[in-house]
């Protein structure tokens, strides 16, 4: 088996697990956890492709992954700040209860 394939499969699995978590758990924070997992899976994909790609010395994949990590961190910070703010307001982190945007 192609080594790349293995990594890609693992990344896909991680992604799916992250997605499942984001879609099924009630707690808002766990949704964010799922999202982080998805991002990680994407980063893994990127690095894998960089390693087995044609021009690893161009560092494209690596750079991409690094920036992704940075952005993920920023987004996690803001997201969690939002959750805390909502919790302060509604005294819950239950996503099912937050349906004031119901149309």
């Amino acid at each position, binding site marked *: 088996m192609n080594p790349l394939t293995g990594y890609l499969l693992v990344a896909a699995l991680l992604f799916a697990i992250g*997605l499942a978590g*984001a*879609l*099924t758990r009630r707690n*808002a924070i766990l*949704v964010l956890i799922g999202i982080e997992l998805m991002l990680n899976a994407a980063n893994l994909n990127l690095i894998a492709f960089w390693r087995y790609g044609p021009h690893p010395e161009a560092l494209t994949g690596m750079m991409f992954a690094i920036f992704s990590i940075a952005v993920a961190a920023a987004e996690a910070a803001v997201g969690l700040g939002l959750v805390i703010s909502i919790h302060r307001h509604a005294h819950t982190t239950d*996503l*099912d209860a*937050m*349906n*004031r*945007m*119901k*149309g």
Partner: protein
Amino acid sequence: MQDTISFTPQLGASTITGILWLIPAVPIFASGIIAILKQPMRKTSSTLAIGSLGFSLLLALIAFAHVLSGWAHGQAVRETVNFTWLQFGTTNVDLGWVLDPLSAVMLVMVTFVGLLIFIYSTGYMAHDENYTRFFCFLSLFAGGMLGVVIANSILLLFMSWEIVGLTSYLLIGFWYQKPSAAAAAKKAFLTTRVGDVFFLLGIVWLFGQTGTLLFYNSGAGSMEANALTALLHQHAAFGLTAAGAIGLLIFAGAAGKSGQFPLHVWLPDAMEGPTPVSALIHAATMVAAGVYLIARVYPLMQAGALTGGTTTALVVVTWVGAFTAVFAALIAVAQNDIKRILAYSTVSQLGYMMAGLGMGGVAVGMFHLITHAFFKALLFMGAGSVIHGCHEEQDIRRMGGLKSDMLVTFLTYTVGMLALCGFPLLFSGFWSKDGILEAAQHFSVSKVPFYMLVFGALLTAFYMTRQMSYVFFGVNRGAKNAHESPNSMIVPLAILAFFAIVLGFIGTPAWPWFHSFLEGRNVKFEPGILIEPGLFALMASSSVVVILGLVLGWRLYGDNTPRPDESDVLERALPLPWKWLHDRLYMDELYGMTVIAFYGWWAQVADWFDRRVWGGAVTAVAWVFGLWAQLNRFLDTNVVDGSFDKGCEELSTGGGLLSRMQSGRVQTYLRLLALAVVALAAILIWSSRA
């Protein structure tokens, strides 16, 4: 002795013929101007009317002089100006006018008598508030009548004929607020209309058969040889040729306008109009239009006659004329309205004219027409003067003894009366009536018309004497302060009286200028002819008849005419015949029972038909529409609105359903996103796979 010159149509019309159209056009134009004048401009309107007719008189005299000079040089004048008015494919509708001796004498008579009556009207209608309207209509009438006279196209003749009929209606009903006047106008119009229908049929037939509307058109006209022979070869019903049938149809039209039996009923009622109207229209001119028409189409009426013989059409004309003459004279004997006596007298004299045409030819009939125009107009105007003087009294039983109060009127009236009776030698009526009697004597078909006409002459003398006795002699049974009329009324009377005497001399057998002029012959003065046995006997017998009538009338009435409450002498003697005659021999009642009743019934039928059948049809259509509207409403409410409402409901429901997607819950959105991504990616991969 008589050199007949056939009329050679001249190729180039003279100047006067070229402007002949002005003769009717100027009065019509004046009428139009009067109609749009700011009311009331009395002086202007009468001046316009009189001026226009005077101008027409001038032109008529010039035309007459032209024809006369042609005749004097031995050339028969018949000049025409024709032009095409409309064109339908190959068919031409032509109009045109003709100047020949017949139209020339008629022009002079109409314009001259008309002018005198116009001047008379300024005095008679002076106190009427509708003075301007009167002159407008009079002018229009004059134009129409002159159009009839000069018409060379039978269509133009008919158009002018209708104008004349219209103005007659307008003028009879001049005082339209009076119900009797309005009814009389309507009666006149409807009765002449009956005649006009037949006339129109004749015109259409003639046009269809000959292909031309023109009388004279350099050989191609309907009164010229080619057309007439063609008409003679066509056969119509009852053994008549087309020429005879058309002639009879045209005579029917003339009978309506000229008041022949049985279409005479409108003439006495037409006396509701003002007296100048009666004088002009119902004595001198319009009623003469019928006679003139027969004279105009005389070649047609005469076509097919063997030398010395006559045609069916002319025989019919003669009989109708003779019968009318006696019929009307009988009724006139028992009338008490001064104008009504004169009206019946007119009907009677028209019968004479028709009989004269039938038996003696154009000249005989036309001569009596011309003389009659003058003395009848004189008599009517005299009657108008009397009415005016007696303060609008018209019943002769309430007049009397006016000979001293109204001298000029009396004298002129006497002249007119003697002319009408045909008093021997001096008066024009004698010569013209004798011409007719002479023709009647030589009538090949029967001698009965002669005797009828002689009897009519007796009656004429009788009833005129009766009238004069009632009006001018005896004691004054009516208004005590009768006065003579103003000069504007007297002078025309005098002029007419003069002509009533003088005109006779142009038609005596000794010097038959009139007849020769019309027929294009040379004339010689032969006094010896008067003493010829046949002619002398005739003259003597007619004189005897006239004098007998005068004496009879004088004996019965004379100076002691009865008072209004007393009954008439004759009435006491023969009460039942008197009643019949007084009631106009029940002609109107007969019409009422037959024609009017039938018309009423027919109107009812038409009403039923209209109400039930057409009304029913309309109601049915409306009902169908109502049904349709209901169907539409149902469709609109249920189908259109229903579907629309349903659609909106569905939309709303669908929206409701779709809004469930907006749960407000993040995870639902995420799920949808993920699903969509899956789907899109699958599509992409699947498509790129191939």
